[in-house]
């Protein structure tokens, strides 16, 4: 197993160097590098699936030690990391296949060799983050991952908005890393060890609370928890679509991995309010994330905000699991973690498919604005169908996998509702309402995405003349979108793998106890004495369809279908400008939630018309306020800058005498510190 894993790492490295060496030949290097990368990912997929099925213990994969203590690279794979590697492998395999076709768009416009090199190292760095068993190597890989993803975000650096996006991203991600560094140093000071496995011992409850907040902020930035999400809606539209798919599909989930690894496993999540904090943050992220997605007209930014929503749903499951774990309700804890991890897996599939699909739309139409699209279903039928699948899945509609994980989250909330104290019950009910609202708004958001982009009349020249994308791209999207249906019908395939993790942490299987879940394939999923089987529901639905289709065809056997133009109220000449726009579609919700969006509307006339009531040319601009940036980040950055400028005048006066005084004062302070330390110890 070790050799096999090392071979996979080597293939990624070879792919990276190959593309760097042959960077002049764009076609060749793109094809070979992506095939190599896809092969490595496929092997990783098989390896991790085998690990989850066969082995239960953690296996050491690679050990590179140095003479310096604590500086070593030790890779270990256990059930949790195997599961995250599985998600990574499925996604990166599809993305690599997609890139074979997609990157053609960028041949001889950007440096493909360097891009593919960074792409492979990016995947490699995520693998290393997930398998690192040492705090320092974790941090180093985490930083490599952040830096390379920054480089990939600003890869098209000739566009000014991309540099701005990159700047926000790198500042935010380093803010997160800073918190992680503090947390790791605190652990090292108190335990004297840099091993993740032994990091949790000997920590006082007081210190654990501090560490919890450090980890929450440190990983929360990467995960995009509101209010730490500001980088996400900038970085995703700036990056190329295959990179956005990787970033949204798996990179932000390495933060969830970090939360589980460090808060549940290392700190031992023994306090109820930790779970409550995560639960509330999750619910806020879910509702606000999708609310912002709904009013977005840049479809990649819409998907980015939707990622925040899904991270929220994942956190709801995680928070419930921590609460139940602290209350010693192991079955509930394991089912909540199951819901959370299953949603994480599902989100990797459908959000990957959606971002790749967004790449396909951009490839075909060269625009990221929903207002310029329309009518793509007729021009790109396969992309349309696959994206419809992914949209149904992300809207949590049966029989797709998204529904099942949301249903499991509802059921975990239901279990908390039946078995906890009054306060938690009320909280859980409010979370139920938030989750329901997020679900309905997600459906509205993806109706907008599909309805405006793929249906109706084309709204621009480029949408009018676009064509279906090449087969490798469709294959990449299909490899992610079709499993959404597969795992909706046969969820036990994945649930059984996640059961390994919950068994390890909570010492109970999800299938155990009265309220457990049956894990036998094809059986209905029964929990809380209420069962669902999407398989049988789908089969019955298909039978119904056949029966009723036959009956209707029989009754209407003498009827014809006539193709005619859409009803235009008798005026004639219905054109695409008369359709509902993306802005118009979300207008009712923008008005209802105006306290949240704070929309501003500007209307001005360029030319006077024949009468004051008729204007020949007018401009209409509607903007919404980025609340968090305006009321939190901007004042913060502003006051920080002002404070820095002021203090510079006081501290850096330019007089050498003052600087000598500083050195003297520092010396005195150190002497006093040393003396205090010596007398106390």
């Amino acid at each position, binding site marked *: 197993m070790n050799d096999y894993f090392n071979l996979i790492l080597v293939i990624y490295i070879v792919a990276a160097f190959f593309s760097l060496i042959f960077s002049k030949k764009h076609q060749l290097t793109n094809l070979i590098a992506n095939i190599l990368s896809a092969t490595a990912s496929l092997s990783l997929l098989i390896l991790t699936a085998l690990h989850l099925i066969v082995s239960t213990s953690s296996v050491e994969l690679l050990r590179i030690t140095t003479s310096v203590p604590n500086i070593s690279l030790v890779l270990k794979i256990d059930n949790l990391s195997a599961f995250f590697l599985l998600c990574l492998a499925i996604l990166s395999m599809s993305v690599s296949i997609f890139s074979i076709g997609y990157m053609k768009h960028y041949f001889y416009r950007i440096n493909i060799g360097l891009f593919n090199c960074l792409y492979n190292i990016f995947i490699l760095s995520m693998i290393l983050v997930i398998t690192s068993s040492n705090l320092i190597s974790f941090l180093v890989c985490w930083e490599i991952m952040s830096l390379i993803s920054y480089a990939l975000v600003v890869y098209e650096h000739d566009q000014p908005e991309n540099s701005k996006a990159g700047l926000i991203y790198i500042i935010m991600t380093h803010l997160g890393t800073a918190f992680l560094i503090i947390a790791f140093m605190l652990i090292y000071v108190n335990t004297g060890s840099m091993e993740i496995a032994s990091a949790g011992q000997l920590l006082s409850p007081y210190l654990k609370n501090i560490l919890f907040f450090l980890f929450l902020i440190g990983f929360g930035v990467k995960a995009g928890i509101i209010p730490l999400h500001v980088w996400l809606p900038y970085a995703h539209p700036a990056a190329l679509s295959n990179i956005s798919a990787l970033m949204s599909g798996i990179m932000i989930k390495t933060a969830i991995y970090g939360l589980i690894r460090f808060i549940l496993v290392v700190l031992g999540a023994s306090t109820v309010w930790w779970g409550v904090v995560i639960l509330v943050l999750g619910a806020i992220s879910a509702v606000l994330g999708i609310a912002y997605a709904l009013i977005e007209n840049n479809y990649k930014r819409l998907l980015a905000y939707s990622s925040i929503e899904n991270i929220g749903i994942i956190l709801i499951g995680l928070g419930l699991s921590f609460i139940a774990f602290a209350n010693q309700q192991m079955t509930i804890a394991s089912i909540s973690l199951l819901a959370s991890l299953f949603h994480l897996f599902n989100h990797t599939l459908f959000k990957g498919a959606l971002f790749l699909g967004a790449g396909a739309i951009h490839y075909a139409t060269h625009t990221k604005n929903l207002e310029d699209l329309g009518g793509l279903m007729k021009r790109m039928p396969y992309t349309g169908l696959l994206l419809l699948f992914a949209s149904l899945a992300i809207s949590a509609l049966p029989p797709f996998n998204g529904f099942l994980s949301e249903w499991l989250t509802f059921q975990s909330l239901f279990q908390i509702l039946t078995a906890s104290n009054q306060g938690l019950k009320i909280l859980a009910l409010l979370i139920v309402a938030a989750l329901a609202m997020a679900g309905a708004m997600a459906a509205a958001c993806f109706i907008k995405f599909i309805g405006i982009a793929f249906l109706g009349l084309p709204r621009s020249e480029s949408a009018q003349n676009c064509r279906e994308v090449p087969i490798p791209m469709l294959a990449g999207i299909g490899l992610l979108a079709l499993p959404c249906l597969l795992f909706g019908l046969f969820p036990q395939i994945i649930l059984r793998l996640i059961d390994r993790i919950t068994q390890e942490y909570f010492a109970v299987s999800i299938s155990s106890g009265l309220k457990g879940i049956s894990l036998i394939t094809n059986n209905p999923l029964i929990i809380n004495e209420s069962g669902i089987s999407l398989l049988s529901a789908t089969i019955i639905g298909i039978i119904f369809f056949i029966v009723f289709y036959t009956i209707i065809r029989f009754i209407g056997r003498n*009827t014809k279908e006539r193709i005619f133009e859409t009803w235009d109220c008798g005026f004639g000449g219905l054109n695409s400008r008369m359709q509902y726009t993306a802005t118009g579609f979300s207008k009712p919700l923008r008005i209802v939630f105006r306290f949240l969006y704070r929309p501003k509307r500007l209307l001005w006339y360029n030319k006077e018309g024949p009468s004051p009531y008729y204007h020949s040319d007018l401009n209409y601009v509607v903007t919404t306020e980025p609340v968090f940036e305006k009321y939190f980040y901007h004042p913060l950055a502003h006051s920080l800058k002002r404070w820095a400028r002021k203090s510079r005048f006081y501290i850096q006066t330019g007089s050498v005498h003052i600087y000598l005084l500083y050195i003297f004062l520092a010396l005195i302070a150190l002497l006093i510190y040393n003396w205090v330390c010596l007398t106390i110890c």
Partner: protein
Amino acid sequence: MKLLLYVFMQLVLVLLLAPLVDGIIKKIKAFSQKRKGPPLTQMYFDLYKLMKKDTVVSETASWVFRTAPYITFISTLLAFMFFPATVILHSISFQGDIILAIYLLGIGRFFMVLAGLDTGSTFGGMGSSREVMIAALIEPALIVVLITLGLIAGSTSIYDIMLLNLQGNSFILNPYSILLFAAIFLILLAETARIPVDDPSTHLELTMIHEAMLLEYSGKHLALMELASVIKQLLFITILANFFLPTGWLGSQATPMLSFLLALITYFFKVVCIALLIAIAEISTVKLRFFSVPNLAAISFALAFLGFMQFIILGR
């Protein structure tokens, strides 16, 4: 085999009853306006007529427009399969989860709204945009009511909730249930496009929601969409009838056949009662301004939340 029998009976029941209930509501409204109104069976004739007519499909429309009626109809029908009309019918049915049933209705809505956008007509977009707003506002209240009912019954299984209600200890006699009943009644009016939210009997472009999405449909497609919407209406009426109103006729005393008939009659009677209530609500209110609908949703959510609070404080 038993499953087939159940599905068949439930199908016959819904296909017979759903248009009839719509007819009953129309008839009551007509009485209140001193009109004679259409005969109770009018909708069957309408549907049959529509199915025998040619269909017109917009040249802009894609395959989504053609398949949406089937998907909407089938998913609504499938959702209704989870709501056995009587407990006796349940003994041969399959497990049904309340959240699954609601999300199945969600699929129907998803495709109906997409179909509204597919023809490129302004009306379709208008209806779709309004429909998703109402859905987003109503959904939290609906799920909160259903989860609270599940909490009372100890499970989100539709059968368990129904059984607890029908076994003598009827929900409607409890104070919290009156609140939940009121909440879900408001949701019913919104979900089935009834008067304070939408007017099913007009085609005025300024106000229509549900009808605007269906404006481009004709022939068998329209028939399916209409049938789906009355089935959805019957589904919500069944939730009220079987989850709140008493007397289920569990059928242990009499012969199976007789008790089954009696159970069906009680179910029918309860459905007519709720239909009467809907008609009264429609007669006695006017259509709300569209942006007042959030208030209705808020009232419904508040009622549901108060019901829940009362349940956890007072207990069953």
